[in-house]
């Protein structure tokens, strides 16, 4: 029993934190968000460092590490709220690597690993996905419909950029018309691939919660009213304690999900549902609470906390929100109890 990262994993986390503090600070974030365009050199740098291929098998040009290492990067990218197609590409990569055929892997994973030909993934209905992260720049799009998933090359899909409340990321509407080739099915275990994607997405939300919690605490220490730092008032300090409660709970669940993905697949379905539910709730509640602690300033465009709040809204809705996950947790638990009771 050792619920902590290895020294190498800690090192990945530290390096990522330092690099992103330099390359993706709040000013760079603001520039990207207000310009509604990525700083291309940031993603190039992440590609050159090999981040894009971290969890992809070596035979496809990746580093061959696990979901845990990917999760660490996603958490740090969420902490920095880096404006880049990294997450969408990583989620698409997980879908193809874990549910695709050898041929599909060989075709798409090298581009995903190098970041030269990126991927993305979304839930679709009737061949259409309304808000797909980074679809316009992607080479390949995975559309999940019900229990099955389809892989569509960018050229086969109609992709129309859409603006959302989150200007820190590019989104698009994707549709595949029936007359077009319609893409090809991912023939493998879609559910377990999706579970991995959920863990990575959860990690981004943990990073977002962590950062906005820190922003609130920093502000509560500095801002004075009644000649007192507002953090000395329990109405504020207890709110901050609640942020820690929510963030750490989501972190426990997400890290366990990462471990299950790499080490014990039998626990992955439940673990990923729990991680996603907890991370959605934490990201939504902590970012909202952080705005409240910042008071009037927190509601202004000038403060940076709203970028995080907005990304949290999109992330939480991506690949199914918390209520879907809670229903899944109940169904999975009831089923396993029924099996145990019958045996």
């Amino acid at each position, binding site marked *: 029993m050792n619920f902590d990262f290895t020294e190498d994993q800690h090192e990945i986390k530290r390096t990522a934190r330092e690099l992103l503090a330099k390359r993706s600070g709040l000013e760079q974030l603001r520039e990207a968000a207000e310009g509604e365009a990525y700083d291309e050199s940031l993603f190039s740098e992440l590609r050159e460092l090999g981040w894009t291929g971290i969890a992809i098998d070596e035979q496809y040009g990746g580093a061959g590490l696990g979901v845990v290492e990917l999760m660490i990067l996603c958490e740090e990218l969420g902490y920095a709220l880096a404006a880049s197609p990294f997450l969408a590409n990583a989620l698409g990569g997980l879908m193809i690597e874990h549910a695709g055929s050898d041929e599909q892997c060989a075709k798409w994973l090298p581009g995903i690993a190098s970041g030269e030909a990126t991927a993305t993934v979304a839930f679709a209905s009737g061949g259409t996905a309304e808000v797909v992260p980074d679809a316009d720049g992607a080479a390949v799009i995975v559309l999940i419909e019900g229990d099955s998933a389809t892989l569509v090359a960018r050229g086969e899909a109609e992709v129309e950029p859409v603006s959302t409340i989150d200007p820190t990321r590019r989104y698009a509407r994707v549709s595949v018309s029936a007359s077009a080739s319609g893409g090809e099915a991912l023939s493998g275990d879609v559910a377990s691939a999706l579970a991995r994607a959920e863990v990575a997405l959860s990690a981004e939300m943990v990073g977002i919660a962590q950062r906005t919690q820190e922003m609130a605490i920093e502000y509560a220490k500095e801002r004075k009213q009644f000649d007192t*730092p507002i953090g000395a008032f329990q109405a504020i300090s207890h709110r901050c304690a609640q942020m820690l409660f929510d963030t750490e709970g989501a972190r426990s669940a997400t890290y366990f999900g990462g*471990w299950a993905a790499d080490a014990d697949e039998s626990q992955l379905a439940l673990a990923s549902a729990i991680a996603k539910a907890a991370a959605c709730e934490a990201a939504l509640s902590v970012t909202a609470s952080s705005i409240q602690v910042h008071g009037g300033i927190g509601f202004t465009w000038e403060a940076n906390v709203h970028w995080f709040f907005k990304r949290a809204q999109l992330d939480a809705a991506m690949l199914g929100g918390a209520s879907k996950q809670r229903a899944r947790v109940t169904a999975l638990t009831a089923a396993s*109890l029924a099996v145990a009771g019958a045996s």
Partner: protein
Amino acid sequence: MDLTFNESESAFRNELRAWIQANHPGDEPAGEDDGYAFRRDWQRQLYEAGWAAVHWPTEYGGRDATLVEAAIFNEELARARAPFPANVLGLLLAGPTLMTWGDDQQKQRYLDPIMSGEEIWCQGFSEPEAGSDFASLKSKAVRDGDDWLVTGQKVWTSGAQYSKWCMFVARTDFDAPKHKGLTYFILDMEQEGVEVRPLRQITGDAEFNELFLENARIPAANVLGGEGNGWTVALTTLMNERAGLAFGLQVAMKVALDELTEELAASGKLDDPMIADELGSLHIKCEILRLTAYRGLTATMKYGQPGPEGSLTKWMWSQGNQELMQFATQALGVQSLAGGSSWGRAMLRSRGNSIEGGTTEVLKNIIAERVLGLPRKK
């Protein structure tokens, strides 16, 4: 990260599980006194088989269990629905405090009877005017030759009616600042000057008592950790209060939650999406408690103290358990509140969870100041 148990931990679990299966005492009888006697016998059984105080060092009769093994012990007991040993405060609080602060004679005298359950211990900290602000306590001890004479009142003293000894903190220096004038005593409960009055709680049971002291006598040899050092010694006791138990409480919550899930499934109520949603939320909270407790345990093993997550488990448990019990009685319907159903009583009992062992509000203050580094409260 390795969230599996190693060979020796698994062996420990298997040995314990087999032993509990072979020696399970059955259901606890109704009635306060009968229940207590039952748990005392159970402790004797544990003691004779060497299971009573696994977390104690071998030199004091324990097994020198690792933190993980101690967690496993609490998990297995809860999973088997076996009772906790009667002398739980002695095992978890008094024992470790004696090991840290006691002299050789005190350790020699008190530790073994704690383990066997022969001598039960209670905790005399809280007073009517000193709850969360425990350092402001007013019970006073004055010298009388070689003895101390204590007068005052304590409250929330669990198990006082069965106790031989009390971890008793009194003020010995009224001129010193409030944290400095305290002394930690080992008080003999079997004497004239000690009166125990049961305190009926909202369940109708009386787990707690009020304690009235009128010139109760304590020999000077029964000071623990030195005169005027009571605050520091008491902190050792309070630190132990929050450690270890989380695992047993988590499993007890999981057992109740699984039972509820089965009852709701059997009655078709799980098809109600609102019920399924709330039940899912509770399973999530319960699992997060388990994982967070293990994270805290890893941090303690690696760095000597838990990280920020360590302060959260008591809060997670009390809130989760209260929500579980409230949800259970509402979801199962009004018959769960009628006599004979254990849910109604469990729901009532759960209201104490966020008060006992440190209120949630005080925990939030501690987290805000010590973990988040916010300025001291106004």
